[in-house]
Every structure is written in C-alpha cells, then in structure tokens.
C-alpha cells in the first residue's frame, strides 16, 4: 500500500520472492530510500544465519527470538547510518551479536554451568554421555561460545569477528582454539587423555586423523 508521496506502508504479510539479483547493499539503500519491501527481503535472505547466531549464542529459543527482533529493529532504524565499511551481512551479524551480548551480560547473574579448568582426565565424559554440539556449546564460557559460533559455525573472518567483539585478533584465535578443545572433551572425543597410551579406537569416536591447522 503505497502512500501518495512515495512513502508506503510495508506490506509485511506479503512474501516477496527474492531472486538474489539485488545485492544486500542495494536492498539496504532501497530501504533507506523508502522501498517498503527491501528490508523484509534482506531479513528473509539472512534470517537463518542470524537466527543460528542468536540461538547458538544464547541457547534459548525465546531469548534468541527477542534478541534477533531487537537487533533487526535497530538495524531497520539505523540503516541510513550504514557506511558500507563492511558487508551488510557482517553489519547485521554485529548488531545481532551485540544484542546477544547484552542478554548474556544480563544473564550473568544466573548460575552457569561453565566448565572449571578442564580436566582432560574427566572420566565421566565418554560417548555414552557425550553432549550434542548444541548442548555442549551452552557449557562453554560465553566469550568462547560466541567466537566459535561466528568463526567456526558461521564462517565469518577472524578479523571481522575481532572487530565485532572489540577484541584483538589473537584473542579470537585463542578462543577458537580453546573452545573446540573443551568441546572435544564434552563431545567425548578426548577420552582419558591423561593416560600415556592414548585412546583406543573401540572406546569412543574415531575422528579422522588430520593435521591441525591454525587460523589466519
């Protein structure tokens, strides 16, 4: 429903097909210019990735839904301040991450199940009791969890994530090294590594042997 002077009521109940022919930047600019469909198209295009970031970071469906909503409303309003220094998707991720971090900080008063100093000999963790990745992530410290979600799960560049989180690149790299190590314990990939002879192939997951590579 378009207004008489070029302004329009956003037909939010109408799903507009996105053929991908319009870039993210073009959609954002169109939104700023008053295109009533542009922002919805942008949201639909990136919704799953943004949702995954929020859900994996917060570990709670309702919290994630609220965080994504808060974030995208902020993006909706602040679109005219997007400078194009980064990709639109990075910008959207940053806003969602900030919304999630706000909620993480507010939730820090709650007791957490953050792992203590990792005891690699923890005998109670094996394949029979191993957590799935989603649950294991929730047991990571928030800073490691967010770094893993963004870098290892979403594939964002380390430098972008460092800027997003306001920490040095090396810090993100370290979080992305330590987080998986803790996950390996929780997922049952590390079984009694305190033993000098290593793990037997019959007693747990047998991930393929591969050289571990550092991040750039």
């Amino acid at each position, binding site marked *: 429903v378009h207004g008489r002077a070029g302004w329009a009521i*956003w037909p939010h109940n109408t799903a507009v097909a996105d053929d991908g022919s319009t870039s993210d930047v073009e959609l954002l600019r169109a939104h700023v210019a008053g295109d009533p469909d542009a922002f919805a198209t942008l949201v639909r295009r990136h919704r799953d990735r943004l949702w995954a970031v929020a859900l*994996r970071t917060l570990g709670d*469906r309702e919290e994630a839904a609220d965080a994504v909503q808060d974030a995208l409303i902020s993006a909706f309003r602040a679109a005219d301040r997007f400078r194009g220094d980064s990709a639109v998707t990075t910008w959207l991720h940053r806003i969602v991450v900030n919304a999630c971090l706000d909620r993480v900080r507010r939730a820090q008063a709650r007791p957490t199940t953050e792992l203590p100093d990792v005891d690699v000999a923890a005998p109670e963790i094996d394949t029979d009791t191993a957590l799935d990745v989603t649950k294991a992530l929730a047991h990571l410290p928030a800073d490691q969890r967010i770094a893993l979600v963004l870098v290892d799960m979403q594939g964002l560049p380390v430098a972008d994530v460092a800027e997003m989180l306001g920490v040095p690149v090396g810090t993100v790299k370290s979080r992305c090294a330590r987080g998986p190590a803790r996950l390996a314990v929780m997922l049952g990939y*590390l079984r009694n590594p305190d033993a000098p002879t290593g793990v037997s192939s019959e007693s747990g997951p047998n991930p393929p042997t591969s050289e571990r590579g550092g991040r750039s």
Partner: protein
Amino acid sequence: VTSSDSTVPPVDLDLVADYLDGLLPAGPAEVVERRIGSDPRWANAADQLRRAAPAVARALRDTGTEPMPDDVLDRLLSSLADRAEASAMAHERVETTNAANTAHEDHNTPPARVITLDDRRRRRSIWSDVAKVAAALIVLAGIGTGIGVGLRGNGATKNSSTAASSVEKAPQAASGGVAIPITVSGHDYAGDLSAAPSSSIPAPHVQSPNLPQPNPPTGAGAAGTDSNSVPGAPAGLERLASGGLTACLAELQQQFGAAPARADFGYYEGRPTVVVTLTSGAIVAVGADCGLPGRGPDVVATNH
C-alpha cells in the same frame, strides 16, 4: 588432572590447544613442546586433541545453520512492519513547501516538509497501538507527574509572530519518571525547524520500546489536570498545555522511534504548534490534535 607426581604440572588443555594452533609466543611454546616431548600425559592430550580437531570442526559446521522457525519470522516481520507503517504514516503525503524553502536560512539543514490537512484526514487511526505504550511514556515524558513549574525567560525567540511569554519549565523527574524541558517561546518557526531548541541537552533515559513499563499517572498531577498545565501556551493548544502533551509525545515516539528530548510551544507558519525535538535529532512540529484518538501525532512539519 590427577597425578602421582606432584612435581609434574597437570595437562593444561587450553595451553595445548593454543600450542597446536600456533598461537603461543616462542617461550611458552617451547615450554609446552618440552612437556609434550617428556610427559606422556601431555603427549597424549596433544595427540588426542590433534586427532579430534577435524571432527569437532565438522560438528560445528554441521550445526551452524538453523532455520528460523516460521512463528519467529512472522513475529519479527510483523514487528518491523509496525515500525515501517508508523514511519510511513508519519511521512505520508509529505511535500516541501515554498514557504519552508524561502524561509530556510540555513541551506545545510533539510527543509521542513508539510503534511496537508487532506492527507491527515486520510490517515488511519493507530490509537489502539499507541494506547499500549502511552501509559509507559507518560512516565517517560514526565509530563503527567514530574514537571515542576519553574518559570524563567529563555530569550530564544526570534521572529515571533505573537507576543506569547517565553517561559521554561524546569525538568524535574518524577518518582520513576523522566522529565523533559518544556518551553513556551511563542516563536513562529515559519518553515525553519532548525531554530528549535537544541537537542544536545542530556537525553532522558529511554526505556526499550519493547518493554514498556506501564505507570500511568494517578491523582493530582495526572494528565489533564491543572497541576501540570503549561502557562502562556498559544491559543488553540490548551489541551496540549493542560496534560494532553503526554499522549502526544507517546504518539511521536511510536511513529518516529525516538524519545522526546524537549518541547516548545509556539507556531508554525502562524499555526499553533508544539515543536518537539527527539533524541534522534529529528524535529517535529505537531498540531493541536496531536495525541487525540485517531489523529496520531498530527504532524505539521518535520525536518526528518
């Protein structure tokens, strides 16, 4: 890590992980390397971690995507659409007037745009939506309960077309509320909203629009009572000057997505208006019907 030899440090998995990713400086890296080379437990941990890394990375990748549930998407789009609609209505049928341009002294400032009466008649009511947040904004705006009367001249008037008194009501937060400054300059903005009082005043605390904290005023001082009237307001703005500004500001916040920072009773091209500066920097001139059910904020002009 349990160890029968208290002199051997326990395996530090974080350190091993950093070492394997090549993140340790030379000194600590050499220490970890020596331990891996000399302590079977450290060697075992490093070996297992090295072997587990690809599986963990794969598990993370495989878990990376998660379709947004339909109900979450619907809720999200609906919420965004509400804001788009509100914004569109605020700017609906906007046109630049020659008067605004000719009176515009500062060419760097966007000209004011005027909504015609005809278009305001067509504007649909959003009162039911606004009502949900109005109660919270009563406290936010501080009009209903929190503004003490402290009159003093502000001397900011220029080109006034009327001889209205110039007064300022000192901001004074009510219990649980935040006051905004209200002036009665009597200034005729004549298309130049940049003459509005600066928005660089300390912005009132803004509660999340999504989390209104209903706290309607009660008793003496409530909206519509004499105790919060604004003396000296131009004729035609009596309702707004006697408590109606609260609902008006709620409408404005709803439509512009920013909290009111201050308000000035005056004129716009001879028409009695309240010029409201929002925390976003937007300046909006509203008419006498602002806040009336079905009339929205009655925007006369805006620089936004």
